């Protein structure tokens, strides 16, 4: 008892001290967490900028350089960078949004803008953009088209459109005329036959004329469906892929892979080293590709050119475009949103856009830059980059809506089964349409 009676006060003291420390720590943590306004003691506004890029790669390096220049030009704004590779960035972003900790401004894949906007995560940029001349920028209309009310939830950062890539050396060796703007799908098939070669006579082609299938469907079945007169998503927002025109397009693809054998089937495509490595390694002589494929083709040291996509039976080319965009977090307070918009405005300017063009990752969205020799007369192939601008001018969007990832995955899974001959084309289109429409119907807009 005496021991306890003398020891207890000491323990109580310990307890009291512990409690005091706990309270102090809690207050400190709360104070840290409450630093949300972004206005520091030095009067500067701190914004968080998120983007996806390969760590240490050219895009990451250029972005960091541009951020430094932006801070220099805007001394009242401090930029905190959050970057990661594409997959990691988007996985983290979804968790950050759930935890209300997303960046103030981030680079969004164009196809995901409506996914975030539809869930109430993005700020409408229409009022900010109203101060700019829309004719000075490419892709604004395509972003607006994704929103049923025509609001602008993202501002263009870089554009991607489709073209026919062809390997000049393989064309010359086969004695085939290079593609022109007048080419049709019949011309494409005829050239592919001549370009397909079995050099070691093992009964399997070593060089294929064309890459018909790619999991990146913007470079495969989607433009083909449109060129044959079909639609993936109708104007009424309903899935419309189950149509006779789509069937024609898929039958044409099957013909190239299994009858004519001028294109690798899906299994062979993967076995040959994944779809995006076929053209850079000269395993295929032609492919449909977006602007960003210029980088990989040049890494493969391929001498190549680009031409407009061939015309389908209806005369349509089925051009598609994806506009990657800067978006502003709806939860960002006014001062941070204003600072974020300043960054967007800065990035859309001539100098930053010229720097971004040098990387060769995207078509610049500043129209003045698209007219400069840096873009039109590059040091690396392809020489004629205007093809991408023309394609962009006539391109449709990728059927954007708040469940884009889910509904396109449903279609893609079904049609890949058909292209792998695991199901028939009519069954695949029926399943794909039904599953994709269910995904769209399940969505309930925020608020």
């Amino acid at each position, binding site marked *: 008892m005496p021991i306890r009676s003398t020891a207890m006060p000491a323990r109580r003291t310990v307890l009291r001290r512990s409690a005091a420390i706990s309270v102090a720590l809690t207050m400190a943590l709360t104070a840290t967490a409450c630093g949300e306004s972004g206005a520091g003691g030095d009067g500067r506004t701190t914004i968080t900028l998120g983007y996806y890029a390969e760590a240490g790669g050219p895009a990451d390096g250029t972005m960091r350089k541009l951020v430094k220049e932006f801070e220099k030009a805007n001394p009242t704004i401090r930029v905190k960078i959050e970057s990661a590779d594409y997959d990691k960035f988007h996985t983290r972003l*979804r968790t950050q*949004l759930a935890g209300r900790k997303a960046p103030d401004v981030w680079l969004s894949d164009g196809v995901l803008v409506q996914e975030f906007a539809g*869930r*109430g995560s993005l700020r409408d940029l229409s009022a900010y953009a109203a101060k700019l001349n829309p004719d000075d920028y490419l892709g604004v209309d395509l972003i607006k088209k994704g929103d049923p009310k025509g609001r602008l939830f993202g501002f263009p950062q870089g554009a991607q459109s489709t073209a026919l890539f062809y390997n000049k050396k393989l064309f010359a060796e086969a004695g085939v005329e290079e593609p022109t703007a007048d080419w049709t799908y019949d011309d494409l098939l005829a050239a592919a036959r001549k370009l397909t070669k079995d050099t070691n006579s093992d009964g399997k082609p070593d060089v294929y004329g064309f890459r018909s299938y790619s999991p990146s469907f913007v470079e495969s079945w989607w433009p083909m469906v449109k060129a044959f007169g079909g639609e993936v998503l109708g104007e009424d927002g309903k899935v419309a892929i189950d149509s006779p025109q789509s069937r024609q397009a898929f039958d044409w693809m099957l013909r190239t892979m299994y009858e004519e054998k001028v294109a690798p089937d899906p299994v062979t495509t*993967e076995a040959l080293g994944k779809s995006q490595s076929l053209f850079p390694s000269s395993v295929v002589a032609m492919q449909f590709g977006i602007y960003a494929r210029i980088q990989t083709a040049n890494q493969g040291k391929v001498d190549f050119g680009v031409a407009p996509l061939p015309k389908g039976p209806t005369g349509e080319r089925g051009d598609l475009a994806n506009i990657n965009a800067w978006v502003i977090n709806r939860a960002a307070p006014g001062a941070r949103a204003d600072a974020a918009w300043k960054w967007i405005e800065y990035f859309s300017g001539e100098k930053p856009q010229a720097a971004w063009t040098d990387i060769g990752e995207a078509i610049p969205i500043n129209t003045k830059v698209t007219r400069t020799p840096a873009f039109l007369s590059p040091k690396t192939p392809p020489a004629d980059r205007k093809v991408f601008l023309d394609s962009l001018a006539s391109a449709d969007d990728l059927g954007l809506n708040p469940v884009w*990832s889910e509904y396109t995955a449903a279609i893609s899974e079904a049609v890949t089964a058909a292209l792998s001959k695991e199901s028939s084309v009519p069954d695949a289109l029926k399943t794909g349409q039904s599953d994709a429409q269910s*995904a769209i119907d399940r969505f309930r807009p925020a608020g």
Partner: protein
Amino acid sequence: MTPVTTASRRGRAAVDPPKVHPPKPSRPGGAKRTARRVERRWALLFATPYLAHLVLLTAWPVLALAYLGFTDYDTVSSPRWTGLDNYTRLLRDEAFWTSLLNTGYFALIFVPLQTVLALALAVGLNQKLRAMPLLRGAYFVPVVSSWVVMAYVADAVFNPRLGSANAVLGWFAIDPLNWLDSPVLVIPTLALIAVWKGAGYMMVLFLAALQAIPQERYEAARVDGAGAWGRFRHITVPGVSGTTFLVLVLSTITTLQAFEQVFVMTGGGPGDASELTVLYMYRQGFEYFHMGYAAAIAWVLFAVILLLTLVQLRLQKRWVHYA
């Protein structure tokens, strides 16, 4: 008090006894109770970090998950109560059933193969030779390697063009196979790779069990004329049956929760041929914003794991011998 007591003693017979109240008998155990109460408080204080962890990081998420399973929750807006909608949708969701079938197929190959291989390795490595620790370590290396590293190594083996597996097939004039790109071969190939990664850990468990079997039993069997196979069948197998049961339960649970491997190596493809249930759940929650639906999948998966474990527990009475 003391003088009064002395006086009273002296004059007890002559005078009225002084009204001295006897001291209240102290309650036996009262001090003990106080001490226990204080100790309980201290115990609670020391247990607080663990309890906080349990409540905040286990109990609360489990309760939240139970609630989310009955809601439409996109992670951005507030959850909306939808009752049993998620569970009724699950019943009609072909993709979910495909993922469950894929998981079952994966488990059917993986669990027995890993158990047999781990036991065989343990028996082989249960020798008193100088190089044994090195060999045991070598088999354990894949266990501690990440799935990303394993994916690179597996690609060197199963790459359709450059992999050594097809090179071996070539020696026997067999056409190369598209191991991970073929809808038919992808699950068996993934199971093989998973066995390669996991067998080392189970081998260690079996090694511990083997070393606990008394050597006298083997000696007695040898004296009775039992051969190597007889000793293995009648002494080793029953002797490690408790560990075999543990390995079976752990392997089954591991398989039903498999995610990293398919996420890194196939992404669920080709098509949905290797889409396992946890990957499907991840897609629903983190790619398609259906966190409520993903929560429902988690509960169904939990029920499946619980059911299988209960069945295994019931069946073990028939074949597990605890020494």
